[in-house]
């Protein structure tokens, strides 16, 4: 079951998730490529231990967050908006306004603290407080408080973009 083809198939199915998470942390093309390479490498090394008890997306989520938050990256805030534009080519069937909203949300999330980005992405991907607490390593109550505060912060940022 744990062969190369199967692994690559699963990765291909989840490329959207991987890139979505990488782009929250990596600001340059070089870092995006480097992070992708490292996540794939780590996932491949850990794949034999994947027993299928959890969903592959959850398993991969953990690999992605653990890899991304412990990587050494260039912290160039000035390049952030430029890199976002170039790395986030939206090809959605939705209209321009919706695409603009997606970009704004992404941009707002990238303004948050690194660990807050991880928590809100898990929340927006449908994980409940207990599941997030298990992945992140803090209490479910703390997760709830953080999500409330982060959403508030995102709301303020999105409003400021509309002005």
């Amino acid at each position: 079951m744990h062969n190369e083809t199967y692994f690559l198939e699963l990765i291909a199915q989840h490329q959207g998730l991987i890139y979505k998470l990488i782009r929250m942390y990596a600001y340059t093309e070089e870092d995006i490529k480097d992070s992708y390479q490292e996540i794939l490498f780590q996932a491949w090394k850990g794949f034999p231990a994947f027993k299928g008890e959890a969903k592959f997306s959850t398993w991969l989520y953990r690999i992605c967050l653990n890899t991304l938050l412990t990587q050494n990256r260039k912290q160039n805030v000035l390049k952030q908006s430029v890199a976002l534009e170039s790395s986030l080519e939206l090809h959605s069937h939705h209209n321009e306004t919706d695409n603009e909203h997606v970009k704004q949300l992404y941009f707002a999330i990238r303004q948050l603290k690194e660990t807050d980005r991880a928590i809100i992405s898990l929340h927006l991907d449908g994980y409940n407080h207990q599941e997030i607490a298990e992945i992140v390593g803090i209490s479910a109550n703390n997760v709830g408080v953080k999500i409330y505060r982060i959403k508030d912060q995102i709301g303020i940022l999105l409003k400021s973009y509309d002005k």
Partner: protein
Amino acid sequence: MNLETLWQELSKQEVNTASNGLDIPKMSHSSNNMLRLLKRNLLINLLFGVGILLVYAVVLIQYPIPIVQVCFLVVMGFSFWLTTSSYQQYKNIQVDVSPDHQLLGNLERVYNECTTWIKIQERISLFIYPWSIIGGFLLGAVEGSGKDVSYFLAKTSIQMLLAVCLLVLVPTCYYVAKWLLHISFGQYLRRLEENIETLKGT
């Protein structure tokens, strides 16, 4: 659209076509993994440690000057201790990311591995350099002049010169080592520390 729907849209975006056509044999690790960098540094430390032990062993045999031998034996003792602790850390560092690790625990693990190594490097400059400087200084003086070591130790000017060497070289080596570590790990460790504190806080 609400936040959740907007977020889901991002997973559906087309990804860079260059990343398609993955090939496992071509898959390599990135250079941004700090534990991998640390492990490489530890390996260099190990090789250096073994090299230093061999060089000092040769010097001990070649130059039977008691006070120089004492200094170099102390250096060798510290080098041996550092080599073994570097080897222990090298063996214990787990570079691979495990999905079983919780994010907070993983951040703390990486932070601790890095700071442990940095502490070892700082100890090198504080404990090894002074002995190495004294031994090297006296060996150079004896070999250069052909006079006995007691002749130098009795001279106030030589004692002063040795003291100046120690006062200048030990802090210089210490701060250069600290500066180099700061360049390599400073910003990274601050980011890890900040992430750990943010997660622990409410």
